[in-house]
C-alpha cells in the first residue's frame, strides 16, 4: 500500500466519521463480503458458516447488476452477520479450547486482572520441536533458560515471557540465527522476588555480574526496571555463559493505580497469548538452590517448563522496535529520511520471515500494522511515511535483466556468491540449507545477506563517524592556527586526500550494492533499505566537508 492509497483510505474513514461517505458501488460491496469470507476462513474452518456466506454471495451475484438501495442493505447486513459470526465463533473456539497451562507457575495468581489479560497455552508440537532442535537453540542456552525459569520466573505471581530471538526462532520455519542472549519481560509486582532469587543465584555462583538499572523512555522519564546478568550455571568458562536482560514492567494493576507509561509489550495489561514450552531436564534444586539428591545419593532431575511469547508477541516487539528506531533517527534533525540502523534491518527481515506470505505482501502488511496502531500519533505517521518512502525508492530502481539468466541477479544472490569477508577469507556467504526447498534456500540466503550487510553498514557508519571527527580536529587546528607552517598545511591537505581515497572506496562498494539490488525481488529490500540514507546522510556530507576544508586549506596556503 503506498502513501496515496493510505491517504485515500484515511479520507474515506474521515468521510464516514462525518457521515459524508459516498454510496459504495456493487463491486465494492461484493469485495467487502469476499474480504469477510476470507477473514472467516482465516480464523476458523466452520464449513457450515462458510457455506452460508458463500451461498449468499452467489445469490448476490445472480441478481440484477444494477445498483439498487436494497442491495446495499442486504450486503451491509451480510457483512454485519459475518463480523458477528467471526467474533462469536472465534470466541467460542477460544473458550472451548482454552485450558490454561500453568502447572509450572507455582505462585501464579489466576484470578488477577493481569491473568485475565493473559492466555497461557501449551506450545504446539511444531513450536516445541523447533525449540528442541539443539542446532536452533543450543544446549547451553537451554540450560540457562531452565535455570532462570525454574529457579526464578516460574515463581512469579504475574505473567512473564521470554521474548527476542528465543521467541522468534520457534516461530520460524527456516532460520540460521542462533540465539545468543536471553530477554525476559515480567511484572513489576514480582520485581523484589526476582531480584532476591537472582541475588541468591549469584551467591551460589550460578549467575554473575548482576546489575539493576532504570530504562529511560524516549521522553526522558523513568520506564521499566532492567536487570542484566550473565547466566554461568557454575561454569568458569566464559564461553559457556549466556547474557540475560530482563525487564520489570507495569501491568494492569499499576496502570489502574495511575502509572501512565504503557510498557513496550503490555503483558498483563492488554490481551496477550503465551506458549509454554518444555525446556530441558536439569538437576532439581531446593529452596537454597542446592542440588537435590535422593536417599541413595543420586541426583534428582526435573523437566523445566517456561513461557515464551506467541508469534503475535514476537511480531509486536519487532514492530515496536522498528518504530522506536525510526523515531530516534528522525529526532536527529534529518526529517523524513528514515536512516535505518543495522538492527532495524534484521527486525524487518524477522517480521517478514515469520509471515507465511510473500515479501511484498509482508511489507504491505507491515505498513498496515503500523497504520492500525492507535493512537495515531505524529511518530506513527512519520514512521509509516518513512517506510513507504524507502519502499517506493526501492521499487523505482531500474531493472536491467542479465541475458544469461533472463532477470536481474539481485543483491542477495550476488552477496551469496561474492560478499567480501575481508583479506585472506573466501568470498561469498555460508548458506547451508538442509533440504532442497527453494523457499528454504531463499530465506537462508536473505538472512545471511541481511546479517552481512548489518555488520558492514554498522562498521562503515562507525568508521566514517570516527574518522571524520578525528580529521575535523586536525584540520581545524591547522586552519585556526595563524602560525601554521606550509608543511603543516600541506600535511593537512594530504590527510584529506587520503580520507578522500577511503571514502571513494567505500562509495564504490555501496554504489555497486545499490546498482545490484533488484526491485522485482522483494527479498532485496531488507538488504538495500539502509543504503540510500547511508549515502545521503554520511557519504555526501562527508565528501562536501572534505572538499570545503581542502579549499580553505589551499587558500591559506596561497596566502602564505
Amino acid at each position, binding site marked *: 500500500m503506498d502513501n496515496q492509497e493510505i491517504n485515500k483510505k484515511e479520507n474515506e474513514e474521515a468521510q464516514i466519521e462525518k457521515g459524508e461517505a459516498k454510496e459504495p458501488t456493487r463491486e465494492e460491496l461484493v469485495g467487502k463480503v469476499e474480504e469477510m469470507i476470507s477473514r472467516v476462513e482465516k480464523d476458523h474452518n466452520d464449513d457450515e458458516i462458510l457455506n452460508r456466506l458463500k451461498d449468499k454471495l452467489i445469490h448476490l451475484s445472480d441478481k440484477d447488476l444494477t445498483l439498487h438501495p436494497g442491495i446495499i442493505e442486504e450486503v451491509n447486513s451480510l457483512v454485519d452477520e459475518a463480523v458477528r459470526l467471526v467474533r462469536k465463533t472465534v470466541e467460542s473456539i477460544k473458550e472451548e479450547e482454552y485450558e490454561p497451562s500453568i502447572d509450572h507457575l507455582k505462585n501464579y495468581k489466576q484470578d488477577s486482572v493481569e491473568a485475565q489479560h493473559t492466555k497461557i497455552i501449551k506450545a504446539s508440537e511444531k513450536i516445541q520441536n523447533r525449540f528442541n532442535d539443539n542446532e536452533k537453540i543450543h544446549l547451553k542456552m537451554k540450560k540457562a533458560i531452565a535455570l532462570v525459569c525454574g529457579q526464578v520466573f516460574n515463581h512469579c505471581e504475574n505473567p512473564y515471557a521470554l521474548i527476542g530471538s528465543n521467541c522468534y526462532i520457534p516461530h520460524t520455519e527456516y532460520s540460521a540465527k542462533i540465539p545468543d542472549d536471553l530477554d525476559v519481560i515480567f511484572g513489576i509486582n514480582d520485581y523484589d522476588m526476582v531480584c532476591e532469587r537472582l541475588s541468591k543465584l549469584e551467591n551460589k555462583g550460578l549467575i554473575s555480574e548482576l546489575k539493576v538499572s532504570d530504562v529511560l523512555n524516549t521522553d526522558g522519564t523513568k520506564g521499566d526496571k532492567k536487570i542484566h546478568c550473565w547466566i554461568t550455571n557454575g561454569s568458569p568458562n566464559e564461553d559457556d555463559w549466556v547474557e540475560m536482560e530482563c525487564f520489570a514492567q507495569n501491568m494492569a494493576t499499576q496502570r489502574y493505580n495511575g502509572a501512565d507509561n504503557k510498557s513496550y509489550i503490555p503483558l498483563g495489561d492488554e490481551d496477550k497469548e503465551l506458549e509454554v514450552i518444555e525446556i530441558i531436564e536439569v538437576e532439581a534444586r531446593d529452596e537454597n538452590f542446592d542440588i537435590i539428591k535422593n536417599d541413595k545419593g543420586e541426583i534428582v532431575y526435573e523437566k523445566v517448563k517456561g513461557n515464551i511469547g506467541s508469534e503475535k508477541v514476537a511480531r509486536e516487539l519487532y514492530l515496536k522496535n522498528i518504530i522506536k*528506531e525510526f523515531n530516534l533517527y528522525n529526532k536527529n534533525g534529518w526529517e523524513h529520511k528514515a536512516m535505518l540502523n543495522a538492527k532495524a534491518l534484521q527486525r524487518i527481515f524477522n517480521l517478514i520471515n515469520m509471515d507465511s506470505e510473500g515479501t511484498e505482501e509482508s511489507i504491505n502488511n507491515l505498513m498496515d500494522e503500523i497504520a492500525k496502531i492507535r493512537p495515531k500519533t505524529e511518530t506513527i505517521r512519520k514512521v509509516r511515511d518513512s517506510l513507504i518512502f524507502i519502499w517506493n525508492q526501492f521499487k523505482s530502481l531500474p531493472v536491467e535483466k542479465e541475458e544469461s539468466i533472463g532477470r536481474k541477479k539481485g543483491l542477495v544472490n550476488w552477496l551469496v556468491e561474492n560478499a567480501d569477508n575481508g583479506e585472506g577469507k573466501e568470498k561469498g556467504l555460508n548458506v547451508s540449507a538442509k533440504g532442497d526447498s527453494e523457499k528454504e534456500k531463499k530465506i537462508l540466503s536473505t538472512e545471511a545477506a541481511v546479517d552481512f550487510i548489518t555488520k558492514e553498514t554498522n562498521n562503515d557508519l562507525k568508521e566514517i563517524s570516527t574518522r571524520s571527527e578525528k580529521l575535523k580536529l586536525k584540520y581545524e587546528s591547522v586552519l585556526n592556527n595563524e602560525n601554521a607552517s606550509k608543511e603543516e598545511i600541506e600535511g593537512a591537505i594530504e590527510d584529506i586526500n587520503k580520507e578522500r581515497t577511503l571514502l571513494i572506496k567505500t562509495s564504490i562498494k555501496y554504489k555497486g550494492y545499490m546498482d545490484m539490488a533488484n526491485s522485482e525481488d522483494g527479498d532485496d529490500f531488507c538488504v538495500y533499505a539502509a543504503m540510500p540514507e547511508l549515502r545521503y546522510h554520511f557519504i*555526501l556530507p562527508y565528501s562536501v*566537508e572534505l572538499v570545503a576544508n581542502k579549499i580553505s586549506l589551499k587558500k591559506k596556503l596561497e596566502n602564505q
Partner: protein
Amino acid sequence: MEKITNKIKNTEIVENPFSQAEFLKKASNITKEEFFKHFMPENPTPEEVAVVEWMAKDIPFKKLE
C-alpha cells in the same frame, strides 16, 4: 552452520556527526566544478569517475550565475 549475529544491541544507533544545516551551507558555497576538481583523484579510473558523479548528483551545489 555459520553463526548469525545477534550482538548488535537494540539501542546501538550510530551518531550522525553531520548536520543537515552544515551540509546545505557548505554545499551551497561549492560549485559542482570545484567539487570535481578537489574530490576526483588524479588519473581516475572509470569506476572512480562514475562514483564521484554518483555522489555529485544529489549535492545541492552553488548555482553558477
